Protein backbone atom coordinates (compact mmCIF):
# COMPACT_ATOMS: atom_id res chain seq x y z
CA UNK A 1 0.00 0.00 0.00
CA UNK A 2 1.25 3.45 -0.91
CA UNK A 3 -0.32 6.25 1.08
CA UNK A 4 0.28 9.96 0.68
CA UNK A 5 -1.53 12.43 2.89
CA UNK A 6 -1.53 16.22 2.47
CA UNK A 7 1.69 16.09 0.50
CA UNK A 8 3.28 19.27 -0.77
CA UNK A 9 6.42 19.56 -2.90
CA UNK A 10 8.33 22.71 -3.75
CA UNK A 11 11.17 23.16 -6.18
CA UNK A 12 13.04 26.26 -5.16
CA UNK A 13 10.36 28.76 -4.15
CA UNK A 14 7.72 27.31 -6.44
CA UNK A 15 5.07 25.09 -4.93
CA UNK A 16 4.57 22.44 -7.58
CA UNK A 17 2.42 19.98 -5.65
CA UNK A 18 -0.05 21.03 -2.97
CA UNK A 19 -2.20 19.14 -0.50
CA UNK A 20 -2.25 15.86 -2.38
CA UNK A 21 -3.99 12.84 -0.88
CA UNK A 22 -3.26 9.68 -2.80
CA UNK A 23 -3.37 5.95 -2.29
CA UNK A 24 -2.29 3.08 -4.48
CA UNK A 25 -2.86 -0.53 -3.56
CA UNK A 26 -0.92 -3.65 -4.29
CA UNK A 27 -2.61 -5.77 -6.93
CA UNK A 28 -3.64 -2.71 -8.95
CA UNK A 29 -2.39 -0.37 -11.63
CA UNK A 30 -2.86 3.18 -10.47
CA UNK A 31 -2.56 5.71 -13.27
CA UNK A 32 -1.74 9.37 -12.76
CA UNK A 33 -3.00 11.52 -15.62
CA UNK A 34 -3.09 15.25 -16.17
CA UNK A 35 -1.96 18.00 -18.50
CA UNK A 36 1.71 18.95 -18.95
CA UNK A 37 3.02 20.88 -15.99
CA UNK A 38 0.30 19.67 -13.61
CA UNK A 39 2.90 18.23 -11.22
CA UNK A 40 2.67 14.53 -12.10
CA UNK A 41 6.39 13.87 -12.37
CA UNK A 42 7.19 16.06 -9.37
CA UNK A 43 4.68 14.11 -7.28
CA UNK A 44 6.10 10.81 -8.53
CA UNK A 45 9.59 11.98 -7.58
CA UNK A 46 8.33 12.64 -4.07
CA UNK A 47 6.81 9.13 -3.97
CA UNK A 48 10.15 7.63 -5.01
CA UNK A 49 12.09 9.65 -2.44
CA UNK A 50 13.93 11.86 -4.95
CA UNK A 51 12.47 15.11 -3.67
CA UNK A 52 11.83 16.36 -0.15
CA UNK A 53 8.14 16.79 0.65
CA UNK A 54 5.79 18.08 3.30
CA UNK A 55 3.19 15.75 4.74
CA UNK A 56 3.47 11.98 4.87
CA UNK A 57 4.23 9.36 2.22
CA UNK A 58 4.44 5.73 3.26
CA UNK A 59 5.33 2.57 1.37
CA UNK A 60 4.09 -0.56 3.13
CA UNK A 61 3.85 1.61 6.22
CA UNK A 62 7.43 2.94 6.03
CA UNK A 63 7.95 6.69 5.70
CA UNK A 64 9.65 7.23 2.33
CA UNK A 65 11.86 10.10 3.50
CA UNK A 66 13.21 8.00 6.37
CA UNK A 67 14.21 5.02 4.24
CA UNK A 68 17.83 4.53 3.29
CA UNK A 69 18.47 3.87 -0.42
CA UNK A 70 19.12 0.10 -0.12
CA UNK A 71 15.90 -0.48 1.84
CA UNK A 72 13.84 1.52 -0.64
CA UNK A 73 15.53 -0.29 -3.53
CA UNK A 74 14.29 -3.60 -2.19
CA UNK A 75 10.72 -2.31 -2.08
CA UNK A 76 10.28 -0.47 -5.34
CA UNK A 77 11.88 0.19 -8.71
CA UNK A 78 11.60 3.35 -10.78
CA UNK A 79 11.49 3.84 -14.55
CA UNK A 80 12.39 7.43 -15.48
CA UNK A 81 11.12 9.11 -18.65
CA UNK A 82 14.41 8.69 -20.45
CA UNK A 83 17.89 7.60 -19.47
CA UNK A 84 21.06 8.87 -21.10
CA UNK A 85 24.08 6.67 -20.65
CA UNK A 86 27.54 8.19 -20.54
CA UNK A 87 29.61 5.08 -21.23
CA UNK A 88 29.33 2.30 -23.84
CA UNK A 89 27.58 -0.35 -21.75
CA UNK A 90 26.03 -3.33 -23.51
CA UNK A 91 22.29 -3.89 -23.13
CA UNK A 92 22.94 -6.85 -20.86
CA UNK A 93 25.24 -4.82 -18.64
CA UNK A 94 22.56 -2.16 -18.24
CA UNK A 95 19.85 -4.69 -17.40
CA UNK A 96 22.16 -6.43 -14.95
CA UNK A 97 22.54 -3.19 -12.99
CA UNK A 98 19.01 -3.92 -11.77
CA UNK A 99 20.40 -6.89 -9.87
CA UNK A 100 23.03 -4.93 -7.95
CA UNK A 101 20.95 -4.72 -4.77
CA UNK A 102 20.57 -8.50 -4.67
CA UNK A 103 16.85 -8.33 -3.86
CA UNK A 104 15.33 -9.45 -7.15
CA UNK A 105 13.54 -12.26 -5.32
CA UNK A 106 14.03 -14.58 -8.29
CA UNK A 107 14.29 -18.28 -7.60
CA UNK A 108 17.80 -19.70 -7.45
CA UNK A 109 17.45 -21.31 -10.88
CA UNK A 110 16.11 -18.16 -12.53
CA UNK A 111 18.63 -15.72 -11.18
CA UNK A 112 21.50 -16.55 -13.53
CA UNK A 113 19.64 -15.75 -16.74
CA UNK A 114 17.39 -13.06 -15.32
CA UNK A 115 18.65 -10.30 -17.65
CA UNK A 116 17.82 -12.49 -20.66
CA UNK A 117 14.38 -13.29 -19.28
CA UNK A 118 13.66 -9.64 -18.57
CA UNK A 119 14.79 -8.68 -22.07
CA UNK A 120 12.53 -11.35 -23.57
CA UNK A 121 9.61 -9.92 -21.59
CA UNK A 122 10.05 -6.47 -23.11
CA UNK A 123 10.38 -8.02 -26.58
CA UNK A 124 14.14 -7.46 -26.86
CA UNK A 125 15.21 -11.07 -27.09
CA UNK A 126 18.77 -11.31 -28.42
CA UNK A 127 19.59 -7.65 -27.77
CA UNK A 128 21.95 -8.42 -24.86
CA UNK A 129 25.13 -7.96 -26.88
CA UNK A 130 24.08 -4.67 -28.52
CA UNK A 131 25.34 -1.34 -27.27
CA UNK A 132 22.72 0.68 -25.40
CA UNK A 133 23.76 3.94 -27.00
CA UNK A 134 23.10 2.54 -30.47
CA UNK A 135 19.46 1.67 -29.79
CA UNK A 136 16.45 3.81 -30.66
CA UNK A 137 14.69 5.79 -27.94
CA UNK A 138 11.87 3.28 -27.68
CA UNK A 139 14.27 0.35 -27.46
CA UNK A 140 16.29 2.13 -24.78
CA UNK A 141 13.11 2.69 -22.81
CA UNK A 142 12.32 -1.02 -22.95
CA UNK A 143 15.87 -1.90 -21.87
CA UNK A 144 15.37 0.34 -18.85
CA UNK A 145 12.10 -1.41 -18.07
CA UNK A 146 13.91 -4.76 -18.20
CA UNK A 147 16.43 -3.35 -15.71
CA UNK A 148 13.60 -2.15 -13.47
CA UNK A 149 11.91 -5.57 -13.64
CA UNK A 150 15.15 -7.30 -12.60
CA UNK A 151 15.36 -5.10 -9.52
CA UNK A 152 11.97 -6.21 -8.13
CA UNK A 153 11.41 -9.37 -10.17
CA UNK A 154 9.16 -11.00 -7.58
CA UNK A 155 6.04 -8.80 -7.08
CA UNK A 156 5.82 -10.03 -3.51
CA UNK A 157 8.90 -10.63 -1.37
CA UNK A 158 8.79 -11.99 2.16
CA UNK A 159 5.05 -11.47 2.27
CA UNK A 160 5.23 -7.79 1.33
CA UNK A 161 4.16 -6.35 -2.01
CA UNK A 162 6.65 -4.40 -4.10
CA UNK A 163 6.02 -1.52 -6.46
CA UNK A 164 6.87 -0.28 -9.92
CA UNK A 165 6.91 3.48 -10.46
CA UNK A 166 6.71 4.20 -14.17
CA UNK A 167 7.05 7.74 -15.52
CA UNK A 168 5.47 7.75 -18.98
CA UNK A 169 6.53 4.17 -19.71
CA UNK A 170 4.97 4.04 -23.16
CA UNK A 171 5.28 7.57 -24.54
CA UNK A 172 8.14 6.73 -26.91
CA UNK A 173 6.77 3.35 -27.96
CA UNK A 174 4.84 2.10 -30.97
CA UNK A 175 1.36 0.68 -30.39
CA UNK A 176 2.46 -2.93 -30.18
CA UNK A 177 5.06 -2.23 -27.55
CA UNK A 178 2.71 0.07 -25.64
CA UNK A 179 0.50 -2.97 -25.22
CA UNK A 180 3.46 -5.24 -24.39
CA UNK A 181 4.56 -2.88 -21.62
CA UNK A 182 1.07 -2.33 -20.23
CA UNK A 183 0.52 -6.10 -20.22
CA UNK A 184 3.71 -6.49 -18.18
CA UNK A 185 2.40 -3.90 -15.72
CA UNK A 186 -0.98 -5.64 -15.51
CA UNK A 187 0.69 -9.01 -14.98
CA UNK A 188 2.85 -7.53 -12.21
CA UNK A 189 -0.23 -6.20 -10.46
CA UNK A 190 -2.20 -9.45 -10.91
CA UNK A 191 0.63 -11.31 -9.19
CA UNK A 192 0.36 -9.08 -6.14
CA UNK A 193 2.68 -6.14 -6.87
CA UNK A 194 1.66 -2.52 -7.17
CA UNK A 195 2.11 -0.28 -10.21
CA UNK A 196 1.96 3.51 -10.28
CA UNK A 197 2.25 4.89 -13.80
CA UNK A 198 2.09 8.36 -15.25
CA UNK A 199 0.22 8.03 -18.53
CA UNK A 200 -0.75 10.47 -21.22
CA UNK A 201 -2.94 8.21 -23.30
CA UNK A 202 -6.39 8.31 -21.71
CA UNK A 203 -7.62 5.36 -23.74
CA UNK A 204 -4.71 3.21 -22.61
CA UNK A 205 -5.48 4.41 -19.08
CA UNK A 206 -9.11 3.38 -19.42
CA UNK A 207 -8.10 -0.05 -20.72
CA UNK A 208 -5.43 -0.89 -18.17
CA UNK A 209 -5.75 1.19 -15.01
CA UNK A 210 -7.66 -0.10 -12.02
CA UNK A 211 -7.66 3.35 -10.51
CA UNK A 212 -6.98 6.80 -11.90
CA UNK A 213 -5.83 9.97 -10.20
CA UNK A 214 -6.28 13.13 -12.26
CA UNK A 215 -3.83 15.91 -11.44
CA UNK A 216 -4.43 19.53 -12.22
CA UNK A 217 -2.43 22.54 -11.05
CA UNK A 218 -0.51 20.47 -8.51
CA UNK A 219 -3.63 18.99 -6.90
CA UNK A 220 -5.68 15.84 -7.34
CA UNK A 221 -8.79 16.90 -9.24
CA UNK A 222 -10.43 13.48 -9.09
CA UNK A 223 -9.61 9.91 -8.18
CA UNK A 224 -11.39 6.62 -8.64
CA UNK A 225 -12.02 3.92 -11.19
CA UNK A 226 -11.65 4.87 -14.87
CA UNK A 227 -15.41 4.67 -15.27
CA UNK A 228 -15.97 7.12 -12.42
CA UNK A 229 -13.24 9.54 -13.29
CA UNK A 230 -13.16 9.63 -17.07
CA UNK A 231 -16.29 11.62 -17.74
CA UNK A 232 -16.89 14.46 -20.20
CA UNK A 233 -17.01 17.54 -18.04
CA UNK A 234 -14.10 16.75 -15.72
CA UNK A 235 -11.76 15.63 -18.49
CA UNK A 236 -12.64 18.52 -20.75
CA UNK A 237 -12.13 20.98 -17.90
CA UNK A 238 -8.84 19.54 -16.61
CA UNK A 239 -7.29 19.26 -20.06
CA UNK A 240 -8.90 22.50 -21.26
CA UNK A 241 -9.92 20.79 -24.45
CA UNK A 242 -13.13 19.78 -26.21
CA UNK A 243 -13.37 16.07 -25.48
CA UNK A 244 -16.12 13.49 -25.60
CA UNK A 245 -16.06 10.35 -23.47
CA UNK A 246 -17.93 7.31 -24.73
CA UNK A 247 -18.28 3.84 -23.36
CA UNK A 248 -17.38 0.71 -25.26
CA UNK A 249 -20.41 -1.56 -25.47
CA UNK A 250 -18.45 -4.60 -24.39
CA UNK A 251 -17.18 -4.35 -20.82
CA UNK A 252 -18.18 -0.75 -20.33
CA UNK A 253 -14.64 0.58 -20.82
CA UNK A 254 -14.66 4.33 -21.43
CA UNK A 255 -12.94 5.86 -24.44
CA UNK A 256 -12.01 9.43 -25.19
CA UNK A 257 -12.35 11.23 -28.51
CA UNK A 258 -11.84 14.83 -29.52
CA UNK A 259 -15.24 16.59 -29.71
CA UNK A 260 -14.64 17.46 -33.35
CA UNK A 261 -14.29 13.79 -34.23
CA UNK A 262 -17.08 12.60 -31.95
CA UNK A 263 -19.52 15.08 -33.51
CA UNK A 264 -19.07 13.47 -36.90
CA UNK A 265 -19.82 9.97 -35.66
Amino acid at each position, binding site marked *: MIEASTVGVSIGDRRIVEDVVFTASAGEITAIVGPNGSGKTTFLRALTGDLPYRGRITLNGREVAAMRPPEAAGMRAVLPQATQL*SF*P*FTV*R*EVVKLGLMGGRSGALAGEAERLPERALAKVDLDGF*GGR*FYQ*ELSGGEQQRVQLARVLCQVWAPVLEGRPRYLFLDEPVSSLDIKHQLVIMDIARDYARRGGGVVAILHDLNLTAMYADRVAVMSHGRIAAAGTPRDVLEDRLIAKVFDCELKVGVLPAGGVPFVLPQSVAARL
Partner: protein
Amino acid sequence: MSIQSVVAPATMHSGQIAGDRSGRARLVIGALCVVLALTAAFGVSSGASDASAFAVLKGWLLPAGAGEAVLSERDRIIIYDIRMPRVVMGMLVGAALAVSGAVMQGLFRNPLADPAIVGVSAGAGLGAVSVIVLGGTLLAPLTAVLGIYALPLAAFAGGLAVTLTLYRVATRRGQTSIATMLLAGIAIGAMAVALTGLLIFVADDRQLRDFTFWSLGSLAGATWSKVFAVGPIVVAVLAVSPFLARGLNAMALGEATAAHLGVPVQRLKHVAILLVSAGTGAAVAVSGGIAFVGIVVPHLLRLLIGPDNRYLLPCAALLGASLLLIADAVSRTIVAPAELPIGILTAAAGGPFFLWILLRRRGILDL
Protein backbone atom coordinates in the same frame (compact mmCIF):
# COMPACT_ATOMS: atom_id res chain seq x y z
CA MET B 1 32.54 3.03 -38.36
CA SER B 2 32.11 3.75 -34.70
CA ILE B 3 34.28 2.39 -31.93
CA GLN B 4 31.36 0.39 -30.66
CA SER B 5 30.84 -1.41 -33.94
CA VAL B 6 34.46 -2.52 -33.96
CA VAL B 7 34.18 -3.94 -30.49
CA ALA B 8 30.75 -5.54 -30.75
CA PRO B 9 31.47 -8.66 -32.84
CA ALA B 10 34.42 -9.68 -30.68
CA THR B 11 32.19 -9.23 -27.65
CA MET B 12 29.76 -11.76 -29.01
CA HIS B 13 32.46 -14.37 -29.46
CA SER B 14 34.34 -14.12 -26.19
CA GLY B 15 31.52 -14.64 -23.69
CA GLN B 16 28.95 -17.38 -23.74
CA ILE B 17 26.25 -14.86 -22.89
CA ALA B 18 25.83 -12.03 -25.38
CA GLY B 19 26.81 -8.70 -23.89
CA ASP B 20 28.65 -10.19 -20.92
CA ARG B 21 32.26 -9.02 -21.03
CA SER B 22 33.29 -10.15 -17.54
CA GLY B 23 35.16 -13.21 -18.84
CA ARG B 24 37.23 -11.11 -21.18
CA ALA B 25 37.84 -8.56 -18.40
CA ARG B 26 39.27 -11.27 -16.16
CA LEU B 27 41.61 -12.37 -18.93
CA VAL B 28 42.76 -8.79 -19.40
CA ILE B 29 43.44 -8.41 -15.67
CA GLY B 30 45.63 -11.52 -15.80
CA ALA B 31 47.46 -10.31 -18.87
CA LEU B 32 48.05 -6.88 -17.36
CA CYS B 33 49.55 -8.49 -14.24
CA VAL B 34 52.06 -10.24 -16.47
CA VAL B 35 52.79 -7.03 -18.37
CA LEU B 36 53.38 -5.14 -15.15
CA ALA B 37 55.72 -7.82 -13.81
CA LEU B 38 57.70 -7.73 -17.04
CA THR B 39 57.93 -3.95 -17.20
CA ALA B 40 58.94 -3.81 -13.54
CA ALA B 41 61.66 -6.42 -14.10
CA PHE B 42 62.82 -4.49 -17.13
CA GLY B 43 62.82 -1.24 -15.17
CA VAL B 44 65.01 -2.76 -12.45
CA SER B 45 67.42 -4.39 -14.87
CA SER B 46 67.87 -1.74 -17.54
CA GLY B 47 69.82 1.45 -17.34
CA ALA B 48 73.19 3.08 -17.83
CA SER B 49 74.81 0.47 -15.59
CA ASP B 50 74.74 -3.17 -16.65
CA ALA B 51 73.52 -4.40 -13.26
CA SER B 52 70.65 -6.73 -14.16
CA ALA B 53 67.55 -8.09 -12.51
CA PHE B 54 68.86 -11.53 -13.23
CA ALA B 55 71.83 -10.81 -10.98
CA VAL B 56 69.50 -9.54 -8.29
CA LEU B 57 67.48 -12.74 -8.43
CA LYS B 58 70.65 -14.76 -8.19
CA GLY B 59 71.71 -12.65 -5.25
CA TRP B 60 68.46 -13.50 -3.49
CA LEU B 61 68.42 -17.17 -4.30
CA LEU B 62 72.05 -18.08 -3.66
CA PRO B 63 73.35 -18.34 -0.10
CA ALA B 64 74.68 -15.11 1.42
CA GLY B 65 78.33 -15.71 0.66
CA ALA B 66 77.82 -16.51 -3.00
CA GLY B 67 75.41 -13.59 -3.51
CA GLU B 68 78.09 -11.06 -2.73
CA ALA B 69 80.19 -12.34 -5.56
CA VAL B 70 77.38 -11.99 -8.11
CA LEU B 71 76.41 -8.43 -7.29
CA SER B 72 79.11 -5.82 -6.72
CA GLU B 73 78.59 -3.16 -4.07
CA ARG B 74 78.16 -0.52 -6.78
CA ASP B 75 75.50 -2.60 -8.51
CA ARG B 76 73.72 -3.19 -5.24
CA ILE B 77 73.40 0.53 -4.72
CA ILE B 78 72.25 1.10 -8.28
CA ILE B 79 69.60 -1.56 -8.09
CA TYR B 80 68.36 -1.24 -4.52
CA ASP B 81 68.68 2.49 -3.96
CA ILE B 82 68.23 3.98 -7.42
CA ARG B 83 66.29 1.71 -9.74
CA MET B 84 63.99 -0.05 -7.30
CA PRO B 85 62.56 3.02 -5.60
CA ARG B 86 62.13 4.53 -9.04
CA VAL B 87 60.25 1.52 -10.33
CA VAL B 88 58.09 1.29 -7.23
CA MET B 89 57.35 5.01 -7.38
CA GLY B 90 56.55 4.74 -11.07
CA MET B 91 54.04 2.01 -10.36
CA LEU B 92 52.48 3.97 -7.50
CA VAL B 93 52.22 7.16 -9.54
CA GLY B 94 50.91 5.44 -12.67
CA ALA B 95 48.31 3.46 -10.74
CA ALA B 96 47.22 6.51 -8.75
CA LEU B 97 46.85 8.69 -11.84
CA ALA B 98 44.93 6.09 -13.85
CA VAL B 99 42.57 5.16 -11.01
CA SER B 100 41.97 8.81 -10.12
CA GLY B 101 41.08 9.46 -13.75
CA ALA B 102 38.71 6.50 -13.96
CA VAL B 103 36.96 7.41 -10.69
CA MET B 104 36.63 11.04 -11.73
CA GLN B 105 35.13 10.02 -15.07
CA GLY B 106 32.61 7.85 -13.25
CA LEU B 107 31.79 10.62 -10.80
CA PHE B 108 31.30 13.25 -13.49
CA ARG B 109 29.67 10.70 -15.79
CA ASN B 110 32.02 11.77 -18.53
CA PRO B 111 34.95 10.05 -20.24
CA LEU B 112 36.73 13.38 -20.72
CA ALA B 113 37.10 14.22 -17.05
CA ASP B 114 40.73 14.00 -16.01
CA PRO B 115 42.41 15.46 -12.95
CA ALA B 116 45.08 17.14 -15.08
CA ILE B 117 42.64 18.64 -17.56
CA VAL B 118 40.14 20.08 -15.11
CA GLY B 119 42.67 21.70 -12.80
CA VAL B 120 42.87 19.17 -9.96
CA SER B 121 46.54 18.59 -10.70
CA ALA B 122 47.11 22.34 -10.75
CA GLY B 123 45.51 22.59 -7.32
CA ALA B 124 47.62 19.71 -6.06
CA GLY B 125 50.65 21.41 -7.59
CA LEU B 126 49.85 24.59 -5.72
CA GLY B 127 49.74 22.62 -2.49
CA ALA B 128 53.05 20.95 -3.27
CA VAL B 129 54.80 24.18 -4.26
CA SER B 130 53.51 25.86 -1.11
CA VAL B 131 55.38 23.27 0.92
CA ILE B 132 58.50 23.46 -1.27
CA VAL B 133 58.71 27.26 -1.04
CA LEU B 134 57.13 28.05 2.32
CA GLY B 135 58.12 24.86 4.10
CA GLY B 136 61.02 26.57 5.87
CA THR B 137 59.13 29.71 6.87
CA LEU B 138 55.38 30.18 6.88
CA LEU B 139 54.50 26.49 6.83
CA ALA B 140 57.38 25.41 9.07
CA PRO B 141 55.07 24.15 11.85
CA LEU B 142 53.22 22.03 9.29
CA THR B 143 56.34 20.44 7.88
CA ALA B 144 57.70 19.92 11.39
CA VAL B 145 54.62 17.95 12.42
CA LEU B 146 53.99 16.05 9.20
CA GLY B 147 57.57 15.37 8.14
CA ILE B 148 57.80 13.59 4.79
CA TYR B 149 54.01 13.52 4.56
CA ALA B 150 53.75 17.32 4.41
CA LEU B 151 54.27 17.44 0.64
CA PRO B 152 51.74 14.75 -0.39
CA LEU B 153 49.18 15.96 2.16
CA ALA B 154 49.48 19.54 0.96
CA ALA B 155 49.04 18.32 -2.61
CA PHE B 156 46.01 16.32 -1.50
CA ALA B 157 44.52 19.40 0.16
CA GLY B 158 45.06 21.46 -2.98
CA GLY B 159 43.51 18.80 -5.18
CA LEU B 160 40.57 18.39 -2.80
CA ALA B 161 39.85 22.11 -2.80
CA VAL B 162 39.73 22.15 -6.61
CA THR B 163 37.63 18.97 -6.93
CA LEU B 164 35.07 20.21 -4.41
CA THR B 165 34.81 23.61 -6.06
CA LEU B 166 34.51 22.02 -9.45
CA TYR B 167 31.75 19.69 -8.34
CA ARG B 168 29.81 22.51 -6.70
CA VAL B 169 30.08 24.71 -9.76
CA ALA B 170 29.38 22.08 -12.42
CA THR B 171 26.58 20.11 -10.76
CA ARG B 172 23.04 21.37 -10.45
CA ARG B 173 20.18 19.19 -9.25
CA GLY B 174 22.21 16.05 -9.72
CA GLN B 175 23.13 16.82 -13.31
CA THR B 176 26.73 17.62 -14.13
CA SER B 177 27.24 20.00 -17.00
CA ILE B 178 30.25 18.91 -19.01
CA ALA B 179 30.81 22.30 -20.55
CA THR B 180 30.64 24.01 -17.16
CA MET B 181 32.99 21.45 -15.69
CA LEU B 182 35.65 21.91 -18.37
CA LEU B 183 35.38 25.70 -18.35
CA ALA B 184 35.34 25.91 -14.55
CA GLY B 185 38.38 23.63 -14.58
CA ILE B 186 40.20 26.11 -16.82
CA ALA B 187 39.31 29.01 -14.52
CA ILE B 188 40.23 27.21 -11.31
CA GLY B 189 43.39 25.82 -12.88
CA ALA B 190 44.40 29.31 -13.97
CA MET B 191 43.94 30.62 -10.45
CA ALA B 192 46.03 27.79 -9.04
CA VAL B 193 48.75 28.42 -11.61
CA ALA B 194 48.72 32.14 -10.79
CA LEU B 195 49.18 31.44 -7.09
CA THR B 196 51.87 28.93 -7.91
CA GLY B 197 53.58 31.58 -10.02
CA LEU B 198 53.43 33.99 -7.11
CA LEU B 199 55.16 31.44 -4.91
CA ILE B 200 57.84 30.85 -7.52
CA PHE B 201 58.33 34.60 -7.68
CA VAL B 202 59.31 34.71 -4.02
CA ALA B 203 61.27 31.45 -4.08
CA ASP B 204 65.03 31.36 -3.66
CA ASP B 205 67.46 29.65 -6.01
CA ARG B 206 67.49 26.27 -4.35
CA GLN B 207 63.70 26.15 -4.13
CA LEU B 208 63.48 27.24 -7.74
CA ARG B 209 65.66 24.34 -8.80
CA ASP B 210 63.52 21.94 -6.76
CA PHE B 211 60.41 23.35 -8.32
CA THR B 212 61.62 23.25 -11.91
CA PHE B 213 62.69 19.67 -11.53
CA TRP B 214 59.39 18.75 -9.96
CA SER B 215 57.14 20.63 -12.37
CA LEU B 216 58.40 18.95 -15.54
CA GLY B 217 57.15 15.67 -14.24
CA SER B 218 59.81 13.12 -13.55
CA LEU B 219 60.53 10.00 -11.59
CA ALA B 220 64.23 10.83 -11.53
CA GLY B 221 64.21 12.03 -7.94
CA ALA B 222 62.75 8.80 -6.64
CA THR B 223 63.98 7.72 -3.23
CA TRP B 224 62.70 5.21 -0.72
CA SER B 225 61.65 8.03 1.57
CA LYS B 226 59.44 9.47 -1.17
CA VAL B 227 58.03 6.02 -1.81
CA PHE B 228 57.19 5.68 1.87
CA ALA B 229 55.63 9.14 1.88
CA VAL B 230 53.13 8.49 -0.92
CA GLY B 231 52.95 4.70 -0.82
CA PRO B 232 50.41 4.45 2.01
CA ILE B 233 48.17 7.07 0.37
CA VAL B 234 48.22 5.35 -3.00
CA VAL B 235 47.69 1.92 -1.48
CA ALA B 236 44.71 3.30 0.45
CA VAL B 237 43.26 4.78 -2.75
CA LEU B 238 43.71 1.50 -4.61
CA ALA B 239 42.21 -0.47 -1.73
CA VAL B 240 39.12 1.73 -1.41
CA SER B 241 38.39 2.19 -5.12
CA PRO B 242 36.89 -1.31 -5.71
CA PHE B 243 34.18 -0.49 -3.16
CA LEU B 244 33.03 2.37 -5.36
CA ALA B 245 32.89 0.31 -8.54
CA ARG B 246 29.28 -0.83 -8.43
CA GLY B 247 28.03 2.55 -7.30
CA LEU B 248 29.92 4.27 -10.10
CA ASN B 249 28.40 1.83 -12.60
CA ALA B 250 24.94 2.80 -11.40
CA MET B 251 25.90 6.48 -11.58
CA ALA B 252 26.30 6.06 -15.34
CA LEU B 253 22.48 5.94 -15.44
CA GLY B 254 22.25 9.25 -13.58
CA GLU B 255 22.23 10.17 -9.93
CA ALA B 256 18.50 9.64 -9.43
CA THR B 257 18.53 6.17 -10.96
CA ALA B 258 21.62 5.23 -8.96
CA ALA B 259 19.71 6.16 -5.81
CA HIS B 260 16.70 4.13 -6.97
CA LEU B 261 19.01 1.15 -7.35
CA GLY B 262 20.00 1.52 -3.72
CA VAL B 263 23.28 3.43 -4.04
CA PRO B 264 23.91 5.94 -1.22
CA VAL B 265 24.76 8.59 -3.79
CA GLN B 266 25.89 11.38 -1.48
CA ARG B 267 28.34 9.14 0.34
CA LEU B 268 29.61 7.71 -2.94
CA LYS B 269 30.27 11.19 -4.27
CA HIS B 270 32.11 12.27 -1.13
CA VAL B 271 34.34 9.20 -1.10
CA ALA B 272 35.01 9.52 -4.83
CA ILE B 273 36.03 13.17 -4.45
CA LEU B 274 38.37 12.28 -1.58
CA LEU B 275 39.82 9.43 -3.60
CA VAL B 276 40.48 11.52 -6.70
CA SER B 277 42.11 14.24 -4.61
CA ALA B 278 44.26 11.82 -2.65
CA GLY B 279 45.37 9.85 -5.70
CA THR B 280 46.15 12.92 -7.75
CA GLY B 281 47.75 14.69 -4.80
CA ALA B 282 50.04 11.77 -4.03
CA ALA B 283 51.10 11.41 -7.66
CA VAL B 284 51.62 15.12 -8.21
CA ALA B 285 53.53 15.54 -4.96
CA VAL B 286 56.33 13.18 -5.98
CA SER B 287 56.27 13.31 -9.74
CA GLY B 288 54.98 16.74 -10.74
CA GLY B 289 53.01 17.28 -13.89
CA ILE B 290 52.51 13.91 -15.53
CA ALA B 291 49.40 14.50 -17.59
CA PHE B 292 46.98 12.37 -19.60
CA VAL B 293 47.63 9.03 -17.90
CA GLY B 294 44.28 9.47 -16.17
CA ILE B 295 42.41 9.82 -19.42
CA VAL B 296 44.34 7.61 -21.84
CA VAL B 297 44.44 4.49 -19.67
CA PRO B 298 40.73 4.25 -18.76
CA HIS B 299 39.72 5.10 -22.31
CA LEU B 300 41.85 2.35 -23.85
CA LEU B 301 40.52 -0.11 -21.30
CA ARG B 302 36.88 0.79 -21.99
CA LEU B 303 37.48 -0.07 -25.64
CA LEU B 304 38.89 -3.41 -24.56
CA ILE B 305 36.70 -4.58 -21.67
CA GLY B 306 33.84 -2.08 -21.47
CA PRO B 307 33.02 0.50 -18.82
CA ASP B 308 32.21 -1.82 -15.88
CA ASN B 309 34.18 -0.23 -13.04
CA ARG B 310 34.54 -3.52 -11.20
CA TYR B 311 37.07 -4.50 -13.86
CA LEU B 312 38.01 -1.07 -15.14
CA LEU B 313 39.48 0.15 -11.83
CA PRO B 314 41.89 -2.76 -11.22
CA CYS B 315 42.82 -2.80 -14.90
CA ALA B 316 43.47 0.94 -14.79
CA ALA B 317 45.79 0.51 -11.81
CA LEU B 318 47.75 -2.23 -13.59
CA LEU B 319 47.91 -0.57 -17.00
CA GLY B 320 48.64 2.86 -15.50
CA ALA B 321 51.56 1.41 -13.56
CA SER B 322 52.90 -0.44 -16.61
CA LEU B 323 52.46 2.51 -18.93
CA LEU B 324 54.35 4.83 -16.63
CA LEU B 325 57.19 2.34 -16.29
CA ILE B 326 57.37 2.03 -20.07
CA ALA B 327 57.29 5.82 -20.47
CA ASP B 328 60.00 6.10 -17.85
CA ALA B 329 62.16 3.52 -19.61
CA VAL B 330 61.77 5.45 -22.87
CA SER B 331 62.50 8.77 -21.18
CA ARG B 332 65.70 7.33 -19.73
CA THR B 333 66.96 5.86 -22.97
CA ILE B 334 65.72 8.11 -25.78
CA VAL B 335 68.36 10.78 -25.14
CA ALA B 336 70.77 8.67 -23.08
CA PRO B 337 72.86 9.31 -21.12
CA ALA B 338 70.67 12.35 -20.40
CA GLU B 339 67.07 11.93 -19.25
CA LEU B 340 63.91 13.41 -20.71
CA PRO B 341 61.35 14.38 -18.06
CA ILE B 342 58.58 11.83 -18.33
CA GLY B 343 55.91 14.56 -18.25
CA ILE B 344 57.10 15.77 -21.66
CA LEU B 345 56.66 12.26 -23.02
CA THR B 346 53.17 11.65 -21.64
CA ALA B 347 52.02 15.08 -22.80
CA ALA B 348 53.46 14.56 -26.27
CA ALA B 349 51.68 11.23 -26.62
CA GLY B 350 48.58 12.04 -24.56
CA GLY B 351 47.72 15.36 -26.21
CA PRO B 352 47.08 13.91 -29.67
CA PHE B 353 45.28 10.97 -28.08
CA PHE B 354 42.95 13.35 -26.27
CA LEU B 355 42.24 15.18 -29.53
CA TRP B 356 41.48 11.84 -31.17
CA ILE B 357 38.90 11.02 -28.48
CA LEU B 358 37.40 14.47 -28.90
CA LEU B 359 37.07 13.96 -32.66
CA ARG B 360 35.37 10.62 -32.26
CA ARG B 361 33.01 11.77 -29.53
CA ARG B 362 32.30 15.28 -30.74
CA GLY B 363 28.60 14.60 -31.04
CA ILE B 364 28.27 13.17 -27.55
CA LEU B 365 30.22 15.94 -25.86
CA ASP B 366 27.49 18.40 -26.77
CA LEU B 367 29.18 21.67 -25.84
